[in-house]
């Protein structure tokens, strides 16, 4: 239960961080809320730990035109109480209440959650739902990745060993968009068995724009584009019938927490709940 030896680096600039990462066995630590347990179990034994907590500019949330840019060192608790988040993308604050516990939310980071890429985690699902762009800095400059390019498999992403996730960019949605997040977990704060999130814009009683995303429904978070397309132009009372078969074609994982069959049975239920809650909030805002 003690980590193996490592060399500790605390770069003060991103250039120093790239230099520190130029090593055959380096690992970045941000909040450490997933990494340190794995190090304590010696599932991960980096030779060098590059602590990015002192890098400037990674802890901010700003509006940049129609986009919210959330720095990768923003902690879950900071995102949950930030006015820009609560005013423009309240679904983030709603989801953060499900991330582990108070002490973990104080320390864990957005960037850490994204690169850890647990298929049930909240941030990968939110970025997938909101058509976010993941901003990655490397020795050669910045690049942006859509979630569909970034998440490959459980705990696997396309980020390279010499790259640092610096921010996520989330487009602000149209005023009046209702948003909702819901999940089933075995205990408060556990990873979700299945999670669902939705955004809905209503126009004269019919759904005019809708997004639906799931976590825990496969190797990576998924958008249900077919359900979205089927719902567009319909009244909300169509949600039940249209979500009923929405687990078809999905391949949820089987693990110690739940069977694939149980996850499959949760998917339509949570999809419906997320959509109905989003409709209600869209209605309330008009």
């Amino acid at each position, binding site marked *: 239960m003690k980590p193996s030896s490592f060399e500790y680096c605390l770069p003060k600039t991103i250039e120093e961080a790239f230099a520190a990462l130029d090593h055959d066995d380096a690992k970045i630590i941000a909040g450490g809320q997933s990494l340190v347990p794995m190090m304590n179990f010696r599932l991960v034994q980096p030779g060098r*730990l590059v602590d990015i907590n002192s890098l400037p500019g990674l802890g901010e949330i700003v509006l940049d035109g129609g986009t919210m840019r959330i720095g990768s060192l923003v902690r879950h608790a900071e995102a949950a109480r930030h006015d820009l988040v609560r005013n423009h993308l309240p679904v983030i604050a709603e989801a953060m209440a499900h991330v582990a516990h108070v002490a973990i939310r104080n320390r864990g980071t957005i960037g850490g959650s994204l690169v850890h890429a647990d298929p049930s985690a909240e941030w990968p699902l939110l970025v997938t739902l909101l058509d976010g762009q993941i901003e990655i800095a490397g020795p050669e400059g910045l690049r942006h990745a859509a979630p569909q390019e970034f998440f490959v498999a459980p705990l696997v992403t396309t980020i390279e060993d010499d790259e640092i996730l610096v921010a996520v960019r989330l487009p602000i949605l149209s005023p009046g968009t209702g948003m909702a997040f819901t999940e089933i977990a075995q205990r408060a704060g556990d990873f979700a068995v299945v999670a669902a999130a939705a955004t809905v814009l209503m126009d004269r009683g019919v759904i005019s724009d809708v997004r639906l995303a799931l976590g825990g429904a496969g190797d990576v978070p998924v958008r249900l584009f077919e359900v979205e397309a089927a719902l567009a132009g319909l009244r909300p009372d169509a949600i039940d019938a249209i979500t009923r078969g929405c687990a078809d074609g999905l391949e949820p994982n089987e693990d110690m927490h739940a069977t694939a069959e149980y996850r499959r049975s949760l998917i339509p239920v949570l999809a419906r709940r997320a959509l109905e809650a989003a409709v209600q909030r869209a209605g309330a805002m008009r």
Partner: protein
Amino acid sequence: MNAKIDIALTLNGEAVTGRAEPRMLASDFIRDVLLMTGTHVGCEQGVCGACTIRFNGVVARSCLLFAAQLDGAVVETVESLGAPHDLNDIQKAFRKHHALQCGFCTPGFLMTVSEILQTLPLSTDHEIRDALSGNLCRCTGYEHIVRAVRDLVNQRDGVQA
């Protein structure tokens, strides 16, 4: 690579220094090097909450921090709350409501409660239980801990129980 490094921090309001390998967990550093043994070590994987401290003002698991990361930090442990003959309000409420039996988890609960009393409404028992869900107690069944926190929330909000 195993060389010890100097670590200087503010612990419970006092400037202190110690030396440790970077890999030493902050929980071990606080107990074994700084000799503040109120912080308890339970699971060492961030689940049980017994090692909860305040790190730069907010509660954190000290088993998920490395000693090296305490350099320059402001840390408070359970010893910052009160002393055996001068308990603070949280400790008094825990004593009054029998919110501990063996006491192993208690330092972590006290530290968590010290934050949530300041940051959360805690208007329902459900909310109290949710806020405490990161701290495990194997003795009490939580009922008396919730009662203690309810009492503290009532004191805070000026509500007559």
